[in-house]
Structure formats: C-alpha cells, structure tokens
C-alpha cells in the first residue's frame, strides 16, 4: 500500500515536471528564434540596408529601402480600408442591431477570418488585379485589409459591449442622442481595447506573404503612387531566402529581424495598453 502510494507520488511529480518542460520548451522556441535572427541578421543591419535599393543579381550590397516603405504603404492603406469597416461594423453589432442580422454578420466575420491567406490572395487577384490589369499596392492593401476586418469587428463589438451600463444611461439621462452617446462616451471608454485590436490586426497582416504574391507582386525600384507594384518585406525575405546567393541570404536574415522586431513591438505595445484596463472617462 505504501509502495503504491510512493509510485503514484513519483508519477505525479514526474508528469508535472514534464509539463513544466513542455512549457519551457515552448517558450524557449521564441527566444531561440529571436536569438537566431539577431545572430544572423544583426550584423547585416546597417545604414545601407535601410536606405538603398536592391542591387542587380550577383552584386553585393544594396538594401531593402523600397521594401520597408512598400510594407509601410501597404499597411497604411490596408488599415484605411479594413479598420473603418471593422470598427463601424462592430459599432452596429454592439449598439444598433438585434438578433438575426447580428448573427449573420458575426458568422460572416468568422468565416472571413478562417479563410486561408492564399485564398484571399486569389480573391484580390480576380477582383482588383485583373479588371485593372495591374499589379498594385492597392490590390495588396485590399487583400491585407480584408484580413484585418474580422479581428477589428469582433473586438470592437466585444469592447463596446463591455462598457458599463451606467455610462450609457448617464449620457442618455443628460439628453444625448444615441449616436452622441456612442461617439462621445462609449467609444472613448472602450478605446483601449479597440486600439489594441487594431494593433494586433496590423501585426498579423504585417507578416503576411502569400496574398501579396499575386497582388503587390514586387518591385526593384521605388513604387510611386498606389497603382504600381511594390516591394514588401515579407516577399523580399521569401525571394532572397530561396536564392543561392550568400549575400541575399544575409539580407533575408536582416529583413527577417526587422520584420519580426516590428511585429513584436506592436504586439507588446498592444497588449500593454490592454492590460492597463478599460479607461473610465473622467
């Protein structure tokens, strides 16, 4: 009897230690990735990387300035497209709608969220690239914006619903109309959560490569305006990584480091904002 108990205790300690190992391994992977990128990419990050255009094949040097700016433009345009739709849609769900329509919209958003990014790329290609006969920044932004909508929408709804009733009722009691209440009281109260959601959506699409392959295409030069193809960090990383040129590999690591750094920073900022809690207006 005592022996059996000893055995059970041993098993218990062993298995629980194993779970600790699992957790440790999972977290260690993150640090490994970061460390590896830093080690390989850190030395390649120099001023040239940020300011120069890619050099022709076989020549060393050059940078990814156009890809960095290209990614920035894509994200900007994607937000301008995706955020208003997601935000206002979320406002509708939280404030104005009743059962049936709300379920339909939520379901559609979940569906959209689950679409593999490559399929979104196909959609954007047939909707934006073909009719206009152009690969373009806009097409890429459209694809990325689509991917931002579901996250923004659901989060907006959730955070607006989380605003305490007394705030609404207080505003109404003072004579504010519904939309005034929403605009001046409820949204400001929920803005932390909504901002977090937008930032997280942004971080998610910043690293997307597949949809850009058929939309923004690629560009060795600066991409002027919005209707021309553009280079972007993720696509450049992909192109350079599968090449046989050592110099391009080096630059791929550097770009990976820059991209990952950017995404991690956005994530950390977003989650810190959120953890400070929903702001209650003065």
């Amino acid at each position, binding site marked *: 009897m005592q022996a059996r108990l000893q055995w059970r205790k041993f098993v218990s300690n062993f298995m629980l230690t194993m779970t600790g190992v699992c957790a440790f391994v999972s977290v260690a992977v993150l640090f490994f990735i970061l460390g590896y990128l830093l080690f390989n990419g850190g030395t390649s990050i120099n001023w040239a990387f940020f300011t120069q255009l890619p*050099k*022709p*094949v*076989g020549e060393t040097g050059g940078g990814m300035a156009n890809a960095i*700016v290209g990614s*920035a*433009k894509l994200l*900007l*345009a994607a937000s*301008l497209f995706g955020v208003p739709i997601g935000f206002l849609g979320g406002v509708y769900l939280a404030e104005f709608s009743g059962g049936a329509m709300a379920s339909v919209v939520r379901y559609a958003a979940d569906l959209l969220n689950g679409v593999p990014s490559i399929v979104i790329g196909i959609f954007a290609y047939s909707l934006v*690239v*073909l009719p206009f*006969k*152009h*690969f373009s920044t806009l097409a890429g932004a459209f694809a990325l914006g689509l991917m931002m909508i579901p996250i923004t929408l659901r989060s907006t709804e959730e955070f607006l619903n989380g605003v305490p009733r007394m705030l609404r009722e207080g505003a109404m009691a003072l004579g504010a109309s519904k939309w005034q209440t929403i605009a*001046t009281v409820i949204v*400001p109260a929920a803005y932390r959560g909504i901002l977090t959601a937008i930032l997280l959506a942004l971080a998610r699409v910043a690293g997307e490569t597949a949809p850009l392959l058929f939309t923004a*295409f*690629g*560009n*060795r*030069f*600066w*991409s*002027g*305006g*919005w209707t*021309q*193809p553009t280079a972007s960090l993720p696509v450049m990383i992909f192109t350079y990584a*599968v*090449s*046989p*040129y050592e110099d391009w590999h080096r630059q791929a690591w550097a770009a990976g480091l820059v991209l990952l750094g950017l995404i991690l920073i956005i994530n950390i900022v977003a989650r810190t904002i959120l953890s400070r809690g929903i702001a209650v207006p003065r």
Partner: protein
Amino acid sequence: MKRLTGALLAVLVLGVILCAAQNALLINGAGATFPYPIYSKWFDVYHGKNPNIQFNYQSVGSGAGIKQVTEGTVDFGATDGPMNDEQMKAFQDKRKTSILHFPTVLGAAVPTYNVPGVSSSLNFTPEALAGIFLGKITKWNDPAIAGPNKGVSLPANDIVVVHRSDGSGTTYIWTDYLSKVSDEWKNKVSRATSVNWPVGLGGKGNEGVTGLIKQTPNSIGYVELIYAVQNNVTYGAVKNSAGAFIKADLASVSAAAAGAAKEMPDDFRVSITNAPGKTAYPISSFTWLLIPAKIDDAGKRDAIKGFLKWMVSDGQGYAESLSYAKLPNEVAQKVEKAINNVQ
C-alpha cells in the same frame, strides 16, 4: 479625440507624401529566371543612362511571364521557351493584337550536381540524362554514367533529381532537348514550361534549384549556366550530336547558334537544342522578350523601343562577362529591323 484626429491627419499627409508623383516612368515586366542576371544588369545600366525610365522586372518564371503579359498585368514578358501557337492565339484573342518575340541573348542549361567526392566535370550522354530524369537510372555509379567517366570514383548513392517547381523556360529548354534525344521522354513527358516530372524535388526558379543542389548531397538538376558559375556549383559536359563531350561556354553556345542564324524565321521562334556542329553545346537556347505589337501608351512604347535598340547594340557588350553569348550578327540585324514592328 483631438489627438486622434491630429494623428489621423498626420497619417493622411504622410500618405499623400508617399504618394507624391514620381516622374519616372515605370514599366513592369515578368518572366524567365534564366536571363535574370543579365536583364537585371541591363535594366540597372539603362536606368543609369535614362533616370526617368524604370524597368521593373520580376523573375517569376517563363510560364508566369507568358501568362501575365497575356493578361496585360505586365507591359512585357520574357521566356526561354517560345510561346506555342495556342498561347499566341490566346494572346491575340485577349489583347486584340499579336505578340512579338525578340531574342536577347543566348544561354545554356547545364547539368549541375553535388556528388560527394566529385569535384571534376562529369561527362553525360543523352541516354544517361534521359534515364536519370525519367527515374530509370537511380544510382550515381550506374554504368550509363560511369562509362564516359573512367577515372572518376562515383559513389553507389541514390540520385536525387531536382527540377523546377514553377513554369520555366529553362525547363522548356531541358525538356525540349530530352524530347529530341529520347523517344520515351517525348512520349511520356514531352516539352513545356511545366511538365509532369517522373521523379524529383521542385525548386522555385533557377535560384531555388541551385540552392537545393548546393544543400542536397547526391543531387542533380539543370540550371542556367550563369547560376552554376556564380554559385560555384559543379556542372558537367554533355555529348552533342557529333559525338563530342562539350562543356557549356561562350564558344560552344555561339557555335550552336551559328547554324540557326541563317535560317532564323521572321518571328524568331526557333529551337537550337541538339544543334549540329562539332563544337556546339547541345542544350543551348535563345531567350526572348515578349512585346505586344501594339502599345497604346506612347511613353511606354517609346521607352520599350528605345531599350530594345540599346539592348541589341550596346547591351550586347555586357553579355559575355555574365556568361551569356551575344546574338549572332545576322540575328542582331534582323532584330533591329523588327523593332519597328512595335507600334
């Protein structure tokens, strides 16, 4: 709220600035990875001479080049496998004008390999190459390979075949050659930019294949000559129709083109694989730019015609340093006249 509006305004202003008109004319092209080294050099030099013109070339494979120029999403395409009649008709139907082929340089597809302990150049017969890519010859020390390579110690390892996973003109050249030297290949697989490979791994672009070969011991694949040279991958010699084992270089590729020059068809679509000639390299090919016959945008039209004129004259001077053979003189002259067909 005010801060938010302010931030939004700043973002919009930034957007407008980024949007600010670039006076440069951007001309987009896509296609073959085969000539990518020389095209990227040409476009870079040409841009230096004409700062207002930018040729943005994406090396995505000949298949994509043909497809995208047909769709009209790029201004020009590039391919090492000439468009077949069906594809040309599709272009005509879609764009209401015809597509013109302009040969630019000559290149070669070479058998590259990574065999532990072998650093010399192996000799390959057509039968050996066909057998390997058909999956019938599976070991490096097979007699078909060992036969012409007496004195080289070949291991008894399994051969890892590497081919292109994307639609490729280099694939076209390779399968065109194999179709000419092997009936079984011709019937089973045939020639195209994208085929149903009996065996092997797929790499994306010449770059992907070279990368895979460098990383995979016992592998063999086919890449454009310059990729093998630039990346220090060993490549072998191939037996030509006259029976000599020839390694690809400028002289042997030019020899392969020499015969074709005299009989060049007007549309420039010709295959020079397995060309006659004692010193000809059997897996050589022209590579072409695909230009629509009618270009509505005057600025783009003039820029493209200007580039073509430069390409066929001064541009040819850059070819040899990158291991591409220049166009034979007769062909270059014909090309220059044909530029006027672009309206």
